[in-house]
């Protein structure tokens, strides 16, 4: 699968490495060159410097031929705009979008984007962890 990941932060870089290890053709896009330091040496995909909400940049890095586009920059609005461009202008079959704000996340989900809110997911996981009785002493195994 050809995957374009916009944003090479912790999540973007980790995901890029995972997909690359699985044999996918991965392209990572970030506005800052030093963001690519987060990618492991084993990463075999492409690195591009550029702004993902610029249509020309998306065209240049081949978003039109991608099977999936994943937006994971720090900005909710940048993510939703780039995702909608990938979906509506470039016709990418799968577009995934990270949106921190749960309200906006719900809205864009209703508008047909595949979205995830780490705020809700993170809080839910932490609550489940707290609700679960601790066992196995202090080794941390119980978590």
């Amino acid at each position, binding site marked *: 699968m050809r995957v374009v990941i916009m944003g090479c932060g912790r999540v973007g870089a980790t995901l890029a490495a995972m997909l690359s290890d699985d044999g996918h053709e991965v392209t990572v896009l970030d506005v800052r060159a030093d963001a690519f330091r987060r990618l492991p040496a084993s990463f075999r995909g492409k690195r591009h410097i550029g702004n993902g909400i610029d249509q020309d940049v998306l065209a240049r890095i081949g978003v039109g031929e991608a099977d999936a586009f994943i937006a994971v920059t720090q900005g*909710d*609005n940048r993510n*939703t*705009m780039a995702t*909608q461009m990938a979906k*509506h*202008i470039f016709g990418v079959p799968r577009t995934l979008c990270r949106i921190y*704000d749960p309200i*906006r996340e719900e*809205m864009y989900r209703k508008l047909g984007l595949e979205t995830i809110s780490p705020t809700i997911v993170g809080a839910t996981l932490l609550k489940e962890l707290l609700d679960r009785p601790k066992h196995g002493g202090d080794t941390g195994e119980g978590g």
Partner: protein
Amino acid sequence: MYVIVVGGGKVGYYLAKELLAENHEVLVIEQDSAKCERIAEELGDIVLRGDGCEAATMDIAGFGRADMVIAVTGDDEDNLVSCQVAKTMFNVPRTVARLNNPKNQEIFRLLGIDTTVSATAAILAQIEQELPTHQMIRLLGLARGLELVSLKVPAEAGVVGKELGGLLLPHGSLIPLIVGKDGAPHIPAPDTVIHAEDEIVAVTNTENEEALRTILTQP
């Protein structure tokens, strides 16, 4: 009309000032406290400090009863999201977005933003107008994918000397105004003859822009 302006920079400030002068109810949303203070000092209590893309702030601002939302921040992504949330969650009847990158016009239109305004495109059009080319100039984006364009008929064009009614214009295109070489504007009739260097102002949709240009310029 109740108009909400998202972004209190230079564009937002002067826009709010003009709208107030026309007796509209105006609210400016701005994140920067210094900009908020300046607006409050000069234009009065019409400013709300906050994020114009966040539903909670938008609720307090009264987006639900707004007649129009105009997003004029320096970031296209913020203007897009403001307008999308205004439309989707608050059913605002009319949304206007400022474009910093003129290329974003297409995606904004696809996503249902009613009107886009690009200073960059306007300045470019103005410069192009000063140049002796046969380019079609976009004057204004209208609703539903239509636009107002202008074009100077070159001397070698095949349409020179022909009647307007005899031209086969692309579907959805029409010519409401012709400005003669002497600068006199007139509303054309079917028997109006096209002259070299007439400036033709036309309404067309984006898809047919190139076809219209070809008809009016090809030898």
